[in-house]
């Protein structure tokens, strides 16, 4: 009964909520547009938007030393998670069967393990860092903590179910992933799809004023 619920109705419900709420969020942000500005633009906003989206992938030189640890651990986690999500063999199989209808080459098993280690290690380090650094602890809301722990648990249970020998382990992983889908559009995790908009907006506004970000 529980297995049927997790594998069936709850999966469709959480995926629908994820899809509808994420699109709604993106459309709402885009629909707000930019405030009307009558001043003559000094530079093209579009170029600034594009440049800022990419420039912000690395920290400013002034902050490079101070944010070295977060930068490295952050990239390990984000790239690792992205690779696991779209190129782990069980995920490719699941996505092609349930969503896309077609599949693509998956990572070999050793790469899956190695990527899992990098991503989980990076995330665990970031979670501890968030708690230990007085600034990040002060800036973090309960939603931020919840998001990172939920992602961590999803990844961990995925790794625990790696042998694919026990259905119960797969169901625990899937259930947590479904909770993540439900939470995604409403918490800080939504930055995964909104970051180009926020960076682009900042870049466009300041570039228009002649400020290089």
């Amino acid at each position, binding site marked *: 009964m529980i297995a049927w619920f997790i594998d069936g109705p709850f999966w469709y419900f959480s995926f629908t909520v994820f899809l509808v709420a994420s699109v709604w969020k993106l459309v709402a942000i885009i629909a707000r547009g930019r405030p009307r500005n009558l001043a003559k633009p000094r530079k093209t906003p579009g170029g600034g938007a594009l440049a800022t989206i990419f420039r912000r992938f690395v920290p400013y030189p002034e902050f490079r030393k101070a944010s070295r*640890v977060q930068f490295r651990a952050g990239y390990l986690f984000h790239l690792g998670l992205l690779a696991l999500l779209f190129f782990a063999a069980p995920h490719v199989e699941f996505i092609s069967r349930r969503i896309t209808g077609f599949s693509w080459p998956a990572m070999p098993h050793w790469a899956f*393990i190695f990527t*899992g*280690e990098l991503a*989980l*290690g990076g995330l*665990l*380090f970031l979670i*501890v*860092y968030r*708690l*230990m*650094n*007085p*600034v990040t602890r*002060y800036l973090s809301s309960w939603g931020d903590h919840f998001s990172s722990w939920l992602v961590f648990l999803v990844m*961990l249970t995925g*790794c*625990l*179910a*790696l*042998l694919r*020998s*026990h259905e*119960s*382990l797969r169901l625990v992983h899937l259930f947590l992933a479904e909770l993540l889908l439900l939470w995604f559009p409403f918490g800080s995790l939504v930055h995964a799809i909104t970051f180009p908009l926020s960076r682009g907006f900042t870049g466009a506004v300041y570039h228009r004023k002649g400020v290089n970000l």
Partner: protein
Amino acid sequence: MLALLWLTAPLFAAVSHDKPPGLVENPGTDLWREVRRRAPELQALQQAGKRGPVRTQVQGVDTTRLINARGEQWRLYRHRWLIPGSLWLLGGVAALVVLLYLAVALRLPPPRESGRRLLRFETYERTLHWFMAALFLFLGLTGLLLLWGRPLLIPLLGKPAFSAIASASKEGHNLMGPVFLVSLLLFFARFWRRNLYQRGDFAWLARLGGLLGRGPLRVGFFNLGEKVLFWLVVLVGLAISLAGLVLLFPNFGQGRVVMEAAHLVHTLGAVLLLAVVLGHIYMAKAVKGTLEGMTGGYVEYNWAREHHGAWAADTEAAGRVLSVEEVESRRGQRSLVKEGGT
């Protein structure tokens, strides 16, 4: 005659135990006994470069061996000594720690409040410590589930549930093990300098960390007890990790003996380290004011003077003693700028 029969009865009993009356001996017994007996001879031939009379298409370690008696010896050793021994040792240490905590630690007073604080561990150092601690506890838990699970959990949960737990523990343990090694190397790189021998370390030992004698002890950033803990964690942790890698990658031709030795080093080292870490947790909780250094980074000035006098004096001479207000300001809990001021 009766007395003679009575005295020799155990010998007959032993014989009859091997072959219970009414049971016919397996006709293949002699064959398999012969196979087992010849295994070392075949191995000796192989080591000498002669392939011996056994042929197989399966190429690998021990593939020409039909019966390996060492496997049974290892199984018995694990079940009779390793599992109960580790259970008694860790259970005993845990019970002792709880008793000491209730009987002694709860009565120890906190350090006198001076209104001054010293930065003991920076953010990166605290993060590294808890990162490694989290990995160690995860590996310890999953490792003990694998070691003790069969005798302890199967009677409680049943075989199917334990099978899932064991599978998850194995995967989690194998996955996080190499990450622990990385954390250990980072930890070593950060702290090794502060854990070298310094003058006064043996004076600390001679006075059992201040339990004996009078007058202040001149202790630097770490005392000898903490230094011993550091080197134990690093060296035993390294041994556990390397032995774990031998077990994790059995595809490099290591045979049963090497795997058993790696298993032994891995398990004994882990049990030893878990016992030591239980003591470490006790000391951090018992000596009031210690844990604050590893959670918030700052320690009470009086605590530092009492336990690490030389370090406190050096820090004070360098002008790095802060007020409580300054510490709270650094944490973003208070603004030092008065309202209406600039």
